[in-house]
């Protein structure tokens, strides 16, 4: 209750500052979701016009990598959500361990993604080679590189954000609210992958 009336140096009430921080992050996350919504719209239009090519493209992708990455990201989301709860209850050390686990899982995700990109490049399906395919496959592969690449950049940004917050938490310069908004960003990265996974790895021709 005291915190409600505590004020920062510039006179803004702490509770009000936290509320504004949350609102700002919520609006930022909404704008990020809109960015990906545009790409999902492109995917929907492409899939309607080239259903067979998109199904072939999905079958060509490494399903096990997409699936493994799904479980990796879901587990990392659980870790960071638990870290927020632990920090809120005062277990700083436990929270830091969970943030570290989240970051390790994020790196594992990027490692698997890198392996998959390497595999595509070896197959001659690099981002510069998409024009060599027929229009449907070219659109699918173009969207694959665009959407998974943008998502991977968000994972990297999330790792940097989490690393910064973990450092501040470790030196007692941040409370659970800062970790909470960093966790929201990580959950958004997970939420977007929840849609990328079926669209690029599961919805093939049901040949397996």
């Amino acid at each position, binding site marked *: 209750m005291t915190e409600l009336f505590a004020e920062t140096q510039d006179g803004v009430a702490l509770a009000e500052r936290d*509320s504004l921080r*949350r*609102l700002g992050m*919520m*609006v930022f*996350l*909404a*704008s990020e*979701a*809109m960015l990906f*919504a*545009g790409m*999902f*719209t492109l995917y*929907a*239009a492409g899939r*309607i*016009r080239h259903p067979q090519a998109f199904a072939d493209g999905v079958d060509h992708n490494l399903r096990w990598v997409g*699936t493994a990455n*799904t*479980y990796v990201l*879901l*587990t990392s*989301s*659980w870790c960071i*959500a*638990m870290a*927020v*709860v632990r920090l*809120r209850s005062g277990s700083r050390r436990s929270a830091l361990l969970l943030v570290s686990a989240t970051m390790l899982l994020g790196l594992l995700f990027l490692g698997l993604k890198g392996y998959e990109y390497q595999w595509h490049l070896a197959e001659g399906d690099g981002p510069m080679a998409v024009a060599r395919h027929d229009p449907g496959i070219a659109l699918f592969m173009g969207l694959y590189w665009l959407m998974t690449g943008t998502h991977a950049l968000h994972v990297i940004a999330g790792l940097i954000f989490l690393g910064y917050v973990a450092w501040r938490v470790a030196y007692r310069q941040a409370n659970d609210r800062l970790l*909470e908004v960093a*966790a*929201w960003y990580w*959950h*958004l990265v*997970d*939420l977007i992958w*929840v*849609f990328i*996974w*079926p669209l690029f790895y*599961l*919805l*093939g021709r*049901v040949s*397996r």
Partner: protein
Amino acid sequence: MSRTPFGEQAITRVFLGLLALATTSLVLSSHDLGSGQLPVALGIACIKATLIALVFIGVALARPSHIIAVILAAVMSSAMIGLVIMDVMTR
């Protein structure tokens, strides 16, 4: 959050639910569901996304003024995707 945040048990239950939904998606993708394949896969993805937003991000406990941003993004995205799909399908 304006109300009591979710605890460890609730978060873990939702996590297990997400794992179960992901496994369901994976298993169903190997079965021929005909024209239902896409709606089923995206329906499960929507349920997972809703759980992540409501419990992990905590939208379920957020202030109404904060929820507006989420609702607007969802409505506008759905409108954009829906209108483009209708446009492409009716050409």
